[in-house]
Every structure is written in C-alpha cells, then in structure tokens.
C-alpha cells in the first residue's frame, strides 16, 4: 500500500502555539492554516472529547454525501449524448499506422511529444529514455538511467530538456544538447524526491517548474533550478497514477487520478483540492483535460472512460461497451475534442465520439498493451506507446 509519511512541507512558527517546527498545511472550516503536528494531534483529540465520536463524524460525512447527490440529481436534467443528438454523425475515419518506432529493448511505458510537432520522447522498462524524430525515425538521443521501469517522461515546453522518473522515487531533468558526443546521463539532475514511485510528470507552462504525481499518494510542484518543493497536494488516499495540467495559459489548476478511484482537481497556488469526482469502479489510470479546459476525461481499469464537466461538477458521459472487458490505461483528446483516443490492455486503441458516446473506430496494430496515447501538438497525428516495445504514429 502507499506510504503517506511525506507530509511536512514547510517549517516555521505554528499558527496556534507559535513554536517553530515542521508545519502541516490543513484546512479548518475551509481556511488554510499551518499547525505543527503537536497541535494537530491535540485538536483531533479535543474534537473527540467534546462528545463527537468516530461514528457521529462518519454519519455526518455520509449524510452530507447523500444531500450532495440529491442536489446534484435535481440539476441533472439531461445527458451529453441527448444534447448531441442533432449533431451530425462522424464520417468514417481513415487513421492508420504511418510510422513504427523500434529501438527499445523492453516495454515502452510512456511517451510525450515535443512542441515542434515532430520529436517524441519515450521511456521504457529497460531503463532507457530515447528522443526520436518521428518524421525520419531517427533516434536523436538515448539516455540510459540506473533504474528500470521509467514510468513517466515529459518534454519541456522549450524543447531543450526532458524529465523522467519512475521506480527510483525521483524525477530527473536532463538538458538536451545538439552535440551527439555529449554524455547526457552525466548532466541528469534530480529535481523531485518522493517516498514512492513517480507515476507521472509534467512541466508547467515554463521549463522552470515540474509537477509530479507519485505512488505515495501525493502530487508535488518543484522548482527545477533549485530542486525545492514549491507546493504539495494531499488528498488522495492511495497511489496517484496520473496528472494533467489545465490547458489555458493563465490556468492554475490540474487534475489527478489514482488508485482510490477518485479524480481530484487542484489549485496549484494554494494546494487546495477544489473538486473531487468519484464514479469509477476501479483504479483511474489516466486523466486528460478537454481542450477547452472545462472538462476532463479519465481512463480506468473498470474498462470504461468517463467524461466529467467541471462547471456542472459531475460525470456527463461514460464510454463503455459490453465487448470491452479490459482496462483502459490511457486516453487523449483530438484537437477539437470531438474524438477521445483510449488505449486498452487488449492491445487496441478505441476511438470514441465524445459527444454521442459511441465508438467511432478501433485502431489495431500493437502486439501488447497500449501504455500511452498522445495527440501531437498540432493535432495531425496520434503517438502511441506499447508493451510490445514499439511506438506507433497514426495519422
């Protein structure tokens, strides 16, 4: 199970006893306060002595959840696919494999596109991170890492660096150089330190900050230059498997999904959990924002992908079929948001019509689980990584 000892984020005077000590960032009546751990313990103890038992708190929590459901159901007048009935049915899609990138020795676990729309970075179970030119199939850089199972990799917005992490509990940033002879592994810099594996990483709008999610149940925001922890995000009760940043330039939120079946939306500046969605029936493997930033999709081991609207604060669509029984491990939207590409453990990529809730087509080709799908920045192609040790570009 996950290790949640990763708690103290700041050091300073406690808000209640004024003694300088490691502080815990907690919320009392929706206000953020910093208490030292002693005061937190005393407060939790005091709460019990005033007649509140564990059972009464649980009951309060349950009644609040029920009231919330009732209120939400009053507002739920219509489903997304009903609203979209008048929309034209999609014409047949002609998406086929255009490139197969071979070179990894073992399962490819993650991939990401560069903003220049042609380069990709991929990471594998064999501990290697490779930067490819997808047009020419050229391998531009190859970095061997000391640990196996590099679960996450990401390209910096400038295209000058990559980040990768995994079972080593760290996320490192590697600057890319044009000099082919340079030893990139030597320039690797550890930025993020977690107490369990790193499952996902992403640069924010600049090269200077890195957001990571981890098996220790937390997400964290790091300063790349100093390696300092800028903000930590607590709230998941199990491993966090995926995260995605909101697309807007000024956006300061991100969504994360994990093994506790919850998808949480966070404010990056305050560290607060703004919204939480719990309707999946198994681990959420991947979360991805809709291009407009008002909604997000999630892919889960329960063989469904679900679509949540942030303003309506509820699930608005479920993408499932009786014939699909294998878990979905990844998902991504096309540029307009009309198509949802989801990679499954039955080696296929299902393409869903987001508005109508139907499956548009299936992409066959991989010979093992699809671990990651990503649409290129200009929307011209779909990149996919698989446990069959290859990557494919579909267009």
């Amino acid at each position, binding site marked *: 199970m996950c290790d949640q000892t990763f708690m103290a984020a700041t050091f300073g005077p406690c808000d209640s006893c004024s003694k300088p000590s490691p502080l815990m960032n907690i919320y009392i009546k929706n206000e953020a306060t910093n208490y030292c751990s002693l005061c937190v313990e005393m407060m939790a103890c005091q709460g019990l002595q005033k007649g509140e038992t564990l059972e009464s708190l649980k009951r309060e929590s349950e009644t609040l959840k029920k009231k919330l459901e009732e*209120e939400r159901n009053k507002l739920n007048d219509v489903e997304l696919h009903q*609203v979209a009935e008048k*929309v034209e049915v999609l014409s047949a899609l002609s998406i086929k494999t255009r490139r197969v990138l071979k070179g990894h020795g073992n399962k490819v676990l993650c991939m990401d596109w560069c903003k220049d729309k042609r380069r990709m970075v991929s990471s594998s179970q064999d501990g290697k991170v490779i930067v490819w030119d997808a047009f020419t199939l050229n391998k531009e850089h190859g970095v061997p890492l000391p640990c196996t199972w590099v679960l996450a990799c990401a390209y910096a917005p400038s295209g000058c660096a990559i980040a990768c992490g995994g079972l080593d509990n760290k996320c490192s940033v590697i600057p890319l150089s044009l000099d082919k002879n340079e030893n990139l592994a030597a320039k690797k810099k550890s930025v993020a330190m977690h107490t369990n594996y790193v499952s996902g990483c992403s640069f924010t709008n600049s090269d200077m900050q890195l957001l990571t999610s981890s098996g220790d149940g937390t997400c964290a925001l790091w300063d790349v230059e100093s390696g300092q922890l800028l903000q930590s995000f607590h709230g998941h009760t199990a491993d966090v498997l995926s995260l995605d940043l909101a697309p807007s330039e000024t956006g300061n939120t991100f969504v994360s999904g994990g093994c506790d079946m919850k998808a949480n939306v966070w404010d990056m500046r305050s560290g607060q959990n703004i919204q939480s969605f719990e309707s999946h029936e198994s681990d959420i493997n991947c979360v991805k924002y809709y291009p*407009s930033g008002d909604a997000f999709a999630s892919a889960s081991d329960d063989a469904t992908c679900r679509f949540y609207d942030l303003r*309506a604060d509820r699930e608005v669509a479920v993408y499932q079929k009786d014939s699909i029984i294998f878990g979905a491990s990844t998902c991504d939207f096309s*540029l*307009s948001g009309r198509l949802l590409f989801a990679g499954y453990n039955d080696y296929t990529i299902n393409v869903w019509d987001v508005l109508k809730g139907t499956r548009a087509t299936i992409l066959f080709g991989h010979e093992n689980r699809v671990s990651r799908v990503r649409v290129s920045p200009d929307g011209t192609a779909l990149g996919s990584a698989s446990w069959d040790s290859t990557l494919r570009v579909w267009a």
Partner: protein
Amino acid sequence: MSGSANVVAMKKVVQQLRLEAGINRVKLASTISQPQVSQAAADLQQFCLQNAQQDPLLTGMSSSNNPFRPQKVCSFL
C-alpha cells in the same frame, strides 16, 4: 502497543473525515449556483463544432499536407 497505534489511527481518520465534511459543505453551497448539465453540455458541444474544421485527425488530411503520410515520389527539378 496496539492500543496507542489504534488511537493514532483513529485520530487520522477523524482528521480525514473533517476534511471531507469541509469539502462536502463547500460543494453543497455551490450546487445552488451551478449551471444545469444541459447548459454545460451545450457549451462542450459548441466548442467541438467550432473547432472541428481545424482538427486534422477528425477531418482527415490529404497526403500533400500531412507530414506523416507517405509522399509521392519526389522528382528533381
């Protein structure tokens, strides 16, 4: 030994429940001002349709435009 561990665990649960109750109270308050699902869905649909023409995977691209599609044979001028 196990007694003190139970107390610690219980305190953690109490803290977690308090946090959850706090989040739920905020959500309950905000349901009053929430847009209807039909409005939110209509907005999503509008975004899709507005951007549909700029979506290459949706509309399909000819071989000459798409950098990934196999090109016809180049001839030297």
